[in-house]
C-alpha cells in the first residue's frame, strides 16, 4: 500500500466529496417531475380516443399520442447526458420499479372494470385516468425512493 500523507480529517473530507458527487450523479439521472403527469395524460388521452369507437378519432388520437410519447421520451433522453451505474439500483430498486408498474396496471384494471360494472360511460378511460392520477401523485415518490436506494449503497468496492 502506498503510504498516504494526509490527515484523517482530510480523508474524511475526501469521502464526503465522493458521496456528494455520487448523489449529484444520481439526482441528475432521475426523471423530472413533469414526466409523470405528461405520460399519464397521454395514456388517458389515447384510451379516450380508442373508446370513442370513431375511426378518425382513433387515428388522430393514435398519431397524436405517438408524437407526444416520442417527444416526451426524446426530451428525457436528451436531458440525460450520463448513465448512472445500473448496479446502484440493486434488488430493492428493481423490485420497487416492477412493483410500482404492476400496481399501476392493477389499479387501472380494477378501476376500469369497476366503472364498467357500475354502468359508467367510458370505463377504460376512467381506469386510465385513475392510473394517470396515481402516476402524477406518486411518481416523484418512487424517484425519491430510488434515489435513497442508490445513494445508500456503500461507495468504492463495498457491496
Amino acid at each position: 500500500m502506498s503510504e498516504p500523507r494526509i490527515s484523517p480529517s482530510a480523508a474524511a473530507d475526501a469521502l464526503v466529496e465522493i458521496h456528494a458527487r455520487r448523489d449529484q450523479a444520481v439526482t441528475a439521472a432521475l426523471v423530472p417531475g413533469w414526466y409523470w403527469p405528461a405520460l399519464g395524460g397521454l395514456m388517458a388521452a389515447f384510451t379516450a380516443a380508442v373508446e370513442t369507437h370513431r375511426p378518425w378519432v382513433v387515428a388522430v388520437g393514435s398519431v397524436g399520442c405517438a408524437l407526444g410519447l416520442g417527444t416526451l421520451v426524446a426530451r428525457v433522453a436528451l436531458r440525460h447526458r450520463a448513465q448512472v451505474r445500473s448496479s446502484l439500483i440493486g434488488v430493492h430498486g428493481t423490485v420497487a420499479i416492477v412493483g410500482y408498474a404492476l400496481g399501476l396496471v392493477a389499479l387501472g384494471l380494477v378501476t376500469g372494470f369497476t366503472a364498467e360494472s357500475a354502468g359508467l360511460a367510458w370505463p377504460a378511460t376512467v381506469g386510465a385516468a385513475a392510473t394517470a392520477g396515481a402516476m402524477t401523485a406518486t411518481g416523484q415518490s418512487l424517484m425519491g425512493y430510488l434515489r435513497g436506494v442508490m445513494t445508500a449503497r456503500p461507495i468504492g468496492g463495498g457491496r
Partner: protein
Amino acid sequence: MSAPRFDELIHAPTRLSLVSLLAATDWAEFRYLRDQLGLSDSALSKQLSTLEQAGYVEVRKSFVGKRPRTSVKLSRHGRGAFDGHVAALQQIVARAGTSVLPGA
C-alpha cells in the same frame, strides 16, 4: 471489498471529484462532466488526458448527426484504483478512531 491503496493521482481535488462522478456512472458525456464540475473545456480536457494516460478512463468520440459527442467512462483499471483509494481513505479515518464517515 478492494484492498486499500491510496492513489495520489486520484486524490488531487479536481480529479477526485471527476473520478467520483465517473464512478457513479457507466458513462458520462464531456458536457455533463464540465457542467457538473464547473470546469472549462480546457481544464476538463487536461484532467481527462492525465487520467487517460494512466489508463483510468476511456474517452470515446462519436457523432450524433453532425454534432460531435465525447463520452467518458472509468476503465476497469480506473474503477479498481478508485475502489482501492476509497478503501484507503476509510482505513485512515477508521484508524484515527473518528466517526466522520458519511452515514456513520
